[in-house]
């Protein structure tokens, strides 16, 4: 089957979810939509089970941190429809201090470790996850290292400041 055009895909999503899903853009042809955590499982279920879309393959779950935003922690899902060879990216943003989102393990077993990794690196709490604990870092670590407030470089170091390079 041929690839579903982004307009048609979007039409189908907005028929079902109307105002709850907003389009962020389509960078390099990959449709990117944003939704809230209340709808995320409904949206994923719809995308996975709809007979015309069939986004049966969960490519990836990961996070992004934008400290200056009102809702700084983003959870990014990449789905792939193997029958139509269409991809979609879904973003959910969470407020700091309320980083709860329902787990996608109810739909895909493979979401288990992806969500553990996102928890480990960003501190996103996936509600209903069967085994939410750190995966790459040690268990007694207190920080979530991929957040921007944990710099890699020594913050006291001055010789790498952009100022010295005219930036």
């Amino acid at each position, binding site marked *: 089957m041929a690839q579903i055009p982004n307009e048609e895909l979007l039409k189908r999503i907005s028929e079902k979810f109307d105002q709850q899903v907003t389009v962020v853009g389509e960078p390099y042809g990959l449709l990117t939509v944003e939704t809230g955590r209340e709808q995320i499982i409904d949206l994923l279920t719809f995308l996975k089970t709809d007979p015309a879309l069939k986004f049966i393959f969960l490519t990836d779950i990961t996070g992004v941190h934008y400290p200056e935003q009102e809702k700084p922690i983003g959870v990014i899902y990449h789905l792939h429809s193997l029958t139509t060879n269409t*991809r979609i990216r879904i973003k959910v943003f969470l407020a700091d201090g309320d980083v709860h989102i329902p787990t996608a393990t109810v739909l895909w077993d493979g979401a288990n470790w992806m969500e553990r990794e996102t928890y480990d690196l960003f501190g996103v709490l996936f509600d209903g996850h069967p085994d939410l604990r750190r995966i790459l870092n040690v268990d007694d670590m207190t920080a979530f290292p991929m957040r921007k407030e944990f710099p*890699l470089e020594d913050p006291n170091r001055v010789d790498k400041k952009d100022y010295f390079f005219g930036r």
Partner: protein
Amino acid sequence: MQNHPVYTDNDPQSELSTLNLGPTHPATHGVFQNVLQLDGERIVSGVSTIGYIHRAFEKIAEHRPFYQITPLTDRLNYCSSPINNMGWHMTVEKLLGIQTPKRVDYLRVIIMELARISDHIICNGVLGVDTGAFTGFLYMMEHRESIYEIYEEICGSRLTTNIGRIGGFERNFNTIAFAKLRAFLKNFPVTLKEFESLFNRNRIFVDRTKDVAAVTAETALSYSWTGPLLRAAGVDYDVRAMNPYSSYEDFDFEVPVGTNGDVYSRFLVRNEEMWQSLRIIEQALVKLEKEPTDIFHADVPEFYLPPKEEVYNNMEALIYHFKIVMGEIPTPNTEVYHSVEGANGELGFYLVNDGGRSPYRLHFRRPSFINYQMYAPMSRGMLLSDAIINMSSLNVIAGELDA
């Protein structure tokens, strides 16, 4: 350790023994810990712990310009590092909108297929070792060595190659490299044929691998498996065929698909993939003859890191070299996902860029990480010796697992 399941049955007759398979164990080919509960030789339950060589590549990448991320990608799947390199550079090219010349695409295809062959050589050879046959491993190893010699001729290093640049290669392939490549294409099929006749119908090997760790297509898809593992389970998904990159659409090749999803069909799928890779390389060499021989990178001086000789002798090259290394050249403020078919499956790069000198966020979708999570659940009810074979057929590379 408090999260590990504790066996609570107090009956001494049915007492289970706990076995720490790993973190370092000769049969695990890397740093993997699996705490297994054994009833005799049968695995009752298991828990995988990973992260022993976690090096925080994603965090380091946020502090480095694009070029300095190349050595990080090398160390993901170090058995086929050029694929990781090329995947990363293609992601950056997609981000910057760089169109590479056809000759670069074909050279990349050659290098990536060589890398795939070398990875499969290791995997299938080691699978033989784990079933007790050292000969096949020894025969195949010689040819991995000749692949490394081809790399050496092109870029000077063997394992972690740093072979790619944004827009192409650091230097052109010399005639010795092509001669070695042709010698490899002549010699390797002979060995591969011998290897297949040694194993494919070997009674011991087939008995040890057939119907071991069989996975259905539904389970494999649910666990987001990709690569030879998914194809062995019967799903015809190959990134090269479905989303062609680097002019894979110009080549005529088949995607081998298994039926059983067991260790034996993974072995067969990998073997068949090596034949297909050889076929692709042969075609690429024919196509290369029609291309001008002196092109090995796209004409993008503001992004292509010039070779050192030019930096020393050419003012423009020196300026661009400085600007690239210092991250002075503006990049678009957007995000991109690009995936290539790594030796283990879909190797994806999710790059969020904010126009700065380094990525705002870089995420590697590492096939080994995603494939390995099923290891403990699928080991349940398996014999310990089968679990060992299962692990070598998954071909999990510790560097890619942990990133």
